[in-house]
């Protein structure tokens, strides 16, 4: 029974990773950049909900909505100010700028909210479900996280397959130059991608803080890195890959914490990633690109 409990916790954590990884993977697929500031947008999302619900007394649903809007606007602003001028520059330059943005967000949060860890009250009000005389407990947060992840995956897949904007995103990720020639507004598409990715980061932030109720300016950075690992694990640029990578990573992390060593769990997660990449160098679902001479 305890194994099942761990497994469910793993899937729950993995779902959060998957939602964050989606943001990474979409931005990578379309803008071909590693957005290191993504993890800090999660932190901003968490702080907005914290301020709205704990300090101003807004209802949780409204607070989450505000958080999504704030993060979406933040994502678009970051893209406009920091990344857009660098379009056409080397990918390393963009990477360093993203790191600069990440420092900026962390230190801004440090100034506004202070460095002490805040206790986050969970926004989920669903009671826990118990099976088999209380041996198997599924918390409300777990249920909400998993359902949210599934809904996001379905909506996102439909959005990309069925809408014009989604098709434009696919086209830009496939070949930016050709898409531009066919009349796709590349800049608007990239902005849209950042908007969606940041909105998802806000949701992930709320879910993460509900499951692990502590919040400080560095909350986002480690989950951000783990989600990046998850995105690479599943094959960066692939949406189902982000889901599979995220969930697998969550399960591996929780199980190794439970059965091997809590201090080594991060090392085990990274070791599994290395093994996967050595066997499949482009991740589980990554596209294999043959080299032209």
């Amino acid at each position: 029974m305890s194994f099942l409990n761990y497994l469910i916790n793993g899937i729950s954590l993995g779902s959060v990773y998957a939602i964050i990884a989606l943001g990474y993977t979409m931005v990578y697929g379309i803008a071909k950049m590693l957005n290191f500031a993504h993890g800090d947008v999660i932190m901003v999302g968490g702080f907005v909900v914290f301020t709205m619900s704990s300090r101003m007394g807004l209802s949780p649903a409204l607070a989450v909505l505000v958080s999504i809007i704030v993060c979406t606007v933040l994502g678009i602003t970051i893209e406009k100010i920091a990344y857009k001028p660098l379009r056409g520059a080397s990918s390393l330059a963009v990477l360093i700028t993203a790191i600069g943005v990440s420092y900026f967000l962390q230190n801004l949060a440090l100034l506004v909210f202070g460095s002490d860890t805040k206790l986050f009250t969970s926004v989920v009000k669903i009671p826990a479900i118990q099976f088999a005389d209380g041996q198997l407990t599924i918390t409300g947060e777990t249920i909400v996280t998993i359902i949210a992840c599934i809904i996001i995956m379905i909506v996102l897949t439909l959005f990309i397959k069925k809408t014009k904007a989604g098709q434009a995103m696919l086209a830009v990720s496939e070949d930016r130059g050709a898409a531009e020639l066919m009349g796709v507004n590349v800049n608007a598409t990239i902005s849209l991608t950042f908007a969606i990715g940041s909105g998802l980061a806000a949701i992930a932030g709320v879910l993460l803080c509900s499951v692990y109720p502590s919040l400080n300016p560095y909350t986002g950075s480690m989950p951000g890195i783990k989600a990046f690992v998850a995105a690479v694990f599943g094959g960066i640029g692939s949406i189902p890959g982000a889901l599979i990578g995220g969930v697998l990573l969550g399960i591996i992390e929780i199980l190794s914490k439970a059965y091997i060593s809590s201090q080594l769990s991060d090392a085990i997660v990274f070791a599994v990633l290395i093994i996967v990449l050595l066997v499949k160098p482009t991740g589980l679902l990554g596209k294999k690109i043959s080299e032209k001479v």
Partner: protein
Amino acid sequence: MKKLNINKDYLITYGMVVAFYIIMQILQGTGNLSSLFKGLLVPLCVYTIMAVSLNLTVGILGELSLGHAGFMCVGAFSSAFFSMCMKDVISSSLLRFVIAIIISAIVAAFFGIIIGIPVLRLKGDYLAIVTLAFGEIIKNVINILYVGKDGNGLHISTKDSISLGLAEDGKVIINGAQGITGTPNDSTFTIGIILLLVTLFIVLNFMNSRSGRAVMAIRDNRIAAESVGINISKYKLMAFAISASLAGVAGALYAHNLSTLNAMPKNFGYNMSIMILVYVVLGGIGNIRGSIIAATVLTVLPELLRGFSDYRMLIYAIVLIAMMLFNASPKAVEWKEKHSIKRMIASKKQAKEVE
């Protein structure tokens, strides 16, 4: 007779370091150096050595590494471990430190080879994430490592210091997350500068050697390099191992500057690797002198901004973004070319000639 290859450009780089050293010594001698700045001198050497060595991987080999701090960690712990073991055996602190530095270089190079063999098969961002993963693994493993010494020799455990089962005269050297305490403070600014000069000598000469050119050929076009008979894996691994071993040396310098050494996310985590990468990119990828200048400026900058107290890291972030935008954005590059002093002088000359 073999002609000694003295490049004027390289001499400027060496001269810059020596001049910096002399200025600092004069300032220190006349008492014009604040204690805060004095404490910064050895870390400055550590970071510049790190930046120069990472530039070998990123600039010369052309692969993005996000785990450079891992090699520094290996070098720091292996050298500190040696110094702790030999504290009573070798009395001369200079000799002990020199051996410790050599050990750190060898151990870090060994790790560079072990990690390089699988990692260098990958490409681009995948390679970057795997180096990051290795860096984190090294940090995590050191955090659970317990090593003690007594009359019977060394005891190793991964649980806690009690399970080492030491005899009464034994002492714990590496104490898990608490790390190594009581490392002798052998690092001085002079040794740091000497190590930096040695690092520069190795890297600059490597760049100009046959092997270095082979590495750059691989960076520019892997397939073309392979088809003219360059052994890709060998040269890639060579550059990676040299880079790792120099990072190990920086680690030894770092470890012997502190009395307590522990592997925290702050000093050996990916944040550190990224910080070094920032120096390399801002200084100019492949430009060794640029790395030194960028590392110096960016290490000193937060201290100079201390007057702004709470706002200093925020300002640092803004400066970083602004510098990147100014340096790399296509529009800024175009603007700089238009308004560059060299060009203005040239166009004035041209105008005169026309007259």
